């Protein structure tokens, strides 16, 4: 059975009306006719999603297998998070904008959709976007446009929506999907494996250095809808790619669930840089609404000398549960994790990484900068595991926490499991507060308290922000400033 709901709440454009500076800037809702399926989750719903996407049988089987496994699982409770009960039968698992053909037509993009992405600063016309960045734009459950595909195709690079990859490149998808995050991995990843809608797929062939930044922009628009995207990035031997993901959602009083899976594979001598600027709606000042962000991200350095680097700026979401990790299987491979996580008001974050050293001479670096303000709770949780054969492995972890005010909390949970004598593992942790002295010093040079805080925060986070592609570093700085406005003084 297929029903259609028109979810057309006449919300005013909140950006202009009631959002004062410092509030969430992307909280508007677009009035777009949407094709949604009924709430709830069962095998019929999964078949429906699969049929809407015209999927091959093997993929439906993968989904059903995942769903059956998921039913045997329980939601994890070990994180330092207070998660309200989630009714998984009360969520809509598929919502797609019904695209109207546009008159002036950039390849049949609905003008309303185009307007939404323009407003978010993500123009879908290639000539208008930042030179050197290709975008895959995902709106609720589907990818609505991928730019620069032809340019990339000339180099043999595949960059398209996940659904399309399933149709066009089934062999690649079959070979790699689930190879890093198996469908049994964890509650949320398994749920995603059952119901995932869209996401991006990227394949960089042997010896190719991707000449532009690839990016995916995720937008949740519909109410009561979860977003379950899946991203798969494969860098073949000697390949290089830098990838960026951004995300926003409208302001709503109820929570919304986002459970994504990202898998990265780096073959011999390949390098993948994956950057995230996560700005899902964080909820209001009293902790109402906001996105639950339960994400499984993992990269596999399969070949020797390969390298995977995660950089994340986490400012949004009511709850973040996320541990972008690296499995260092190839000898001499390198994993990196650079993170800035902000929790303000009633936001909670339990985030960190896992570095699994399997190969010889593998190296990992972890730099985590937590910032807690308001009643925010910020936890770093990280595992460094060195297996028996990983001789001469090295890890350096640095976890810093910065507190603004007296009602917030910072926590650090480092786990070390070292099974090889020759491994060198270092962990440093600091907790600090922004000093009155520092603010006064800035004041005395003519800098206002608000600007002083922004300056100090950016200084604190600089090591991580510097890892972002240039175009986004500036954005990230502004975002940090906005998300902490009004938290001091």
């Amino acid at each position: 059975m297929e029903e259609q709901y028109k979810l057309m709440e006449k919300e005013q454009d909140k950006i202009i009306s009631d959002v004062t500076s410092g509030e969430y800037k992307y909280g508007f809702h677009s009035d777009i006719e949407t094709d949604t399926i009924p709430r709830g989750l069962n095998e019929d719903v999964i078949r429906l999603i699969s049929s809407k996407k015209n999927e091959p049988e093997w993929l439906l089987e993968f989904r059903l297998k995942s769903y059956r496994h998921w039913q045997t699982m329980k939601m994890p409770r070990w994180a330092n998070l207070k998660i309200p009960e989630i009714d998984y039968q009360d969520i809509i698992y598929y919502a797609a904008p019904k695209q109207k053909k546009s008159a002036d037509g950039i390849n049949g993009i609905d003008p309303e959709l185009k307007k939404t992405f323009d407003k978010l600063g993500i123009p879908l016309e290639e000539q208008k976007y930042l030179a050197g960045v290709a975008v895959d734009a995902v709106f609720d459950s589907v990818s609505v446009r991928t730019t620069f595909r032809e340019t990339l195709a000339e180099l043999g690079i595949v960059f398209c929506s996940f659904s399309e990859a399933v149709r066009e490149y089934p062999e690649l998808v079959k070979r790699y999907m689930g190879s890093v995050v198996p469908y049994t991995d964890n509650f949320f990843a398994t749920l995603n494996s059952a119901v995932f809608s869209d996401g991006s797929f990227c394949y960089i062939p042997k010896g190719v250095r991707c000449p532009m930044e690839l990016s995916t922009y995720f937008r949740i628009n519909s109410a009561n809808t979860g977003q379950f995207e899946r991203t798969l990035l494969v860098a073949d031997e000697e390949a290089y790619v830098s990838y960026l993901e951004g995300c926003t959602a409208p302001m709503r009083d109820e929570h919304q669930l986002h459970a994504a899976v990202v898998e990265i594979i780096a073959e011999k001598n390949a390098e993948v840089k994956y950057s995230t600027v996560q700005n899902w709606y964080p909820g209001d000042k009293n902790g109402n609404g906001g996105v639950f962000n339960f994400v499984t991200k993992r990269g596999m350095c399969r070949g020797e000398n390969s390298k995977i680097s995660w950089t994340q700026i986490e400012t949004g979401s009511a709850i973040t549960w996320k541990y972008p990790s690296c499995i260092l299987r190839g000898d001499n491979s390198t994993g990196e994790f650079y993170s800035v996580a902000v929790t303000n008001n009633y936001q909670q974050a339990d985030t960190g990484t896992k570095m699994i050293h399997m190969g010889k001479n593998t190296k990992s670096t972890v730099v985590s900068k937590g910032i807690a303000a308001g009643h925010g709770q910020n936890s770093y949780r990280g595992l460094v595991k060195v297996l028996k054969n990983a001789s001469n492995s090295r890890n350096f972890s640095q976890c810093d926490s910065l507190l603004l005010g007296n009602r917030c909390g910072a926590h650090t949970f480092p786990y070390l499991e070292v099974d090889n004598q020759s491994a060198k593992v270092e962990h440093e942790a600091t907790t600090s507060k922004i000093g009155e002295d520092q603010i006064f010093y800035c004041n005395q040079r003519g800098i206002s308290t608000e600007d002083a805080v922004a300056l100090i925060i950016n200084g604190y986070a600089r090591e991580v922000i510097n890892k972002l592609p240039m175009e986004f570093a500036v954005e990230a700085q502004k975002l940090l400033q906005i998300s902490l406005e009004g938290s001091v003084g």
Partner: protein
Amino acid sequence: MLVINNLKAAIEGKNILKGISLEVRPGEIHAIMGPNGSGKSTLAAVLAGRELVEVTEGSITFFGKDLLDMSPEARAREGIFLGFQYPIEIPGVSMVNFMKTAVNEHRKHNGLGPLSASDFLKLMREKKELVEIDSKLANRSVNEGFSGGEKKKNEIFQMAILEPKLAILDETDSGLDIDALRIVANGVNKLRRADNSTIVITHYQRLLDYIIPDFVHVMYDGRLVKSAGKELAMELEEKGYDWIKKEVDIQD
């Protein structure tokens, strides 16, 4: 430019300044000397607007405006500069970024647009030469990992960039070797103009060999107990502070 009238101030309920009156006119250098704990740094803190000092009585005007009514940043933009006794470290914030923000705030206050990146770097370069500061210093984070001497030189460097109307140098000479002392003093002398003034707060006469004050004031127990020309500094160096203490105590 600066008129302090019968200023009394307390920290956590304890009276520190017990009635200070002082006038500073354009072009003048005033030295305030006195034994430790006499209230010299508290006076500097009051002028800069430090919140933890509570003004209980008296007034301060700066070019006719009520200084006590202004926020610390407003005072700075009006042209008051405090050279800190213990300059603060701000990790990760580059001197370039810090000073660019400060300069542009001052410019905004004066109705000017922000300085272009190249003009700003030119300004930094000029001032670096003027105060003989190591050019690497300007590329580092604000005071982070600086030696004591470097921190003090950095204060003078910032002063050179911001060109204040009134600079208050709080024990800028403490902890300096003779070369650093000379550099700091030369900086101050080079920045001296007919329309700006300096208050030098110091414990020792040493700095005053390089910076020649127009007036020397002795502070003791929260009051300015003696004011005279530069010769007073010599006398203090020779005889110490005890004779002044005795004089004051007899009067009391």
